[in-house]
């Protein structure tokens, strides 16, 4: 538990350093903006990253509860999943924490037991990386889902208009007409035998 105390003590310096090295993954002009502008709404990227790493760091100290730490990871990864990053670059910020902690604790690492605890901590950081990978994939899958949905939504009304979809059957005078639904039906099942799945089709809407 020595290490946890140390990390708590050095919390603010570690967070600052971690924030800085994450911002260094952006071009210089951008990182200075992301760092200086503190407003939550005019600098949502910088704000989300800072809030995110605070939450992740707390999670790390208190044992990783994936439900609690995931929203913080999600906040950052959701942004980096649509920015100019490769998948590995997008989640690299997790590994940057290892580098920051090693640097900040370089004088203490030699002390009793710390090195061992540090190894455990780094394994926990690896766990965060696994979670991050899952979140990153969810974000990317969402992007493709959005693309597919937009096409589907655009064409649904077109198909409906072209009378290629039976979703107005209940109100349709032709399909509900007695002529269509009597005499021709030899199945003995009564009205509208050909449209027994109409409700299912309507529900698709």
């Amino acid at each position, binding site marked *: 538990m020595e290490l946890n105390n140390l990390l708590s003590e050095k919390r603010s310096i570690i967070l600052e350093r971690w924030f800085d090295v994450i911002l260094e993954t952006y071009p210089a002009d951008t990182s200075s903006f992301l760092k200086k502008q503190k407003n939550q709404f005019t600098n*949502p990227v910088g704000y*989300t990253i800072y809030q995110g790493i605070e939450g992740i760091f707390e999670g790390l100290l208190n044992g990783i509860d994936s439900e609690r730490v995931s929203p913080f990871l999600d906040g950052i990864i959701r942004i980096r999943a649509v920015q100019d990053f490769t998948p590995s670059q997008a989640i690299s910020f997790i590994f940057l924490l290892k580098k920051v902690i090693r640097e900040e604790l370089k004088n203490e690492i030699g002390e009793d037991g710390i090195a061992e605890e540090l190894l455990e901590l780094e394994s926990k950081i690896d766990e965060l990386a696994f979670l991050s990978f899952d979140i990153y994939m969810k974000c990317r899958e969402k992007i493709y889902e959005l693309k597919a949905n937009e*096409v589907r939504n655009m064409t649904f009304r077109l198909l409906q208009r072209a009378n290629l979809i039976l979703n107005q059957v209940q109100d349709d005078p032709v399909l509900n007409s007695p002529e269509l639904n009597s005499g021709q039906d030899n199945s003995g099942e009564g009205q509208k035998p050909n449209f027994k799945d109409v409700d299912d089709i309507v529900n698709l809407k």
Partner: protein
Amino acid sequence: MAVKPKVPKGVPYPDELSKIDYKPPQKGWMDTLVEFKPGTYCYGATIKNIKALESPNQREWSSKDKDWKLPENWREIFLEGMEDRLRKYRSFRLFMDICVRCGACADKCHFFIGSGDPKNMPILRAELLRSVYRKYFTAGGKYLGRIAGARELTYDVLKELWYYAYQCTECRRCSAFCPYGIDTAEVTIIVRELLYNLGLITDWIAGPVVNCYRSGNHLGILPHTLKDTLDTFAADIKTITGIKVEPTINRKGAEILFVGPSGDFFADPGTFTCMGELMIFHELGLDYTWSSLASEGGNFGFFTSNEWAKRLHYKIYAEAKRLKVKWILGGECGHMWRLINQYLDTWWGPTDFLEEPVSPITGTKFENAKSTKMVHICEFTADLIRHGKLKLDPSRNDHLKVTFHDSCNTSRAMGFLEEPRYIIKNVCNNFYEMPPNTIREQTFCCGSGSGLNAGENMELRMRGGFPRANAVRYVHEKYGVNMLANICAIDRAALPALMDYWVPGVGVTGTHEMVANALVMKGEKERTIDMRGEPLLGKEAKGDV
């Protein structure tokens, strides 16, 4: 001290190897070549559309290819076009000359904020062209080159100009902060024109322009399909309210011509807004008509060239003239209003063959529309509400907690801020504003305007829309907001995907869809469902859905 081993020049020493530099290499912007990344740019126009657009340099090409098949003299064509425009538009020359690089605009662009790409800073995006301007049109740039911030127009520079001209939604948030009033959107507009001169246009823009020129709307809907569409809406309205609305098309001698965005004909949730408009007009007994030839308020010609914008825009007025209406009522559209408010009179004014609009219901004279003869439907509806001409039951929107997204064009290009809010507050009980620095004149763009609402550039749209979505998320978490209202068809098309990615659980609605929910029509049946067929609060058990 240990002696360092001899190693060849450029090879690191062992102790240096452990000091890994996590920083990406940094170069100046002029030396950073543009890299086309999938998800950030649109496909090039097809040869069919390029021909129909009468674009120069007609050939098959793809924005993904290395070779864009430019004519040999592409540089001359580009520079001649630039010279021509510098002569023609004093504003353009001023925008090229007067920027003092104060940086006020730098962090105001939603694309920069969301992407972190410095070339999305408005100042730098304009500098991409300014550097070329200096090289070829100023003495300092010609002789001093880089020292004076000038650079050659190379193939790579041309590609860079294309890449970033299609990463600007022309929303003008940056210009609202510029102390000199430089309109960076106009710089983008001119870059796109210069690129059009080389046949470099995107298909997502070219297709609608071609359709609109031929059939009167972006979707290419022909008259019988327009009739069929409105009939389908009428059938849906009958199901919901028990009332049969009977819109007319191309009816000569009607008092009012109604023009809305065609985006509302096919895609939800725009369709519900269109249905809402039909219901209000019916309830008022308004003497109005649709036109099948002016069945589009939007104008993708505006994202192509001035000439195309001008040509497509006039159809509205040509139809008003042909149908002999008195004035025009315009729907919930975005850039249509910017064109009416800022460009129409220069292009085609004065509109002296129409009458100054007067509401036939309240007698209100719309003096602000004295010149254009075109009234925004929100002005019209707000006036009706103000005079108590609509019976409204806002509790029918109690299932909604609403916030309002100011569309860039109506807010910044016409100062249209209060009317939609007035309407919303009268038709629903739960309205919450987003933070002040994200609404009204400072509103954040949806990230998909100016012809960028395609599917292939989804990542770009998500980046650009992030500042908007971030503000929506704030009111969603704080007040439980579940509906994002707007008055623009591109918003209605683009925001659902944006919400789905950043703030799941928030829907998107046109303002007149909510009016339709609240509108108590004469002789209507008891309403159990809203315009979307969802059960109204308290009516779930009785509902027949």
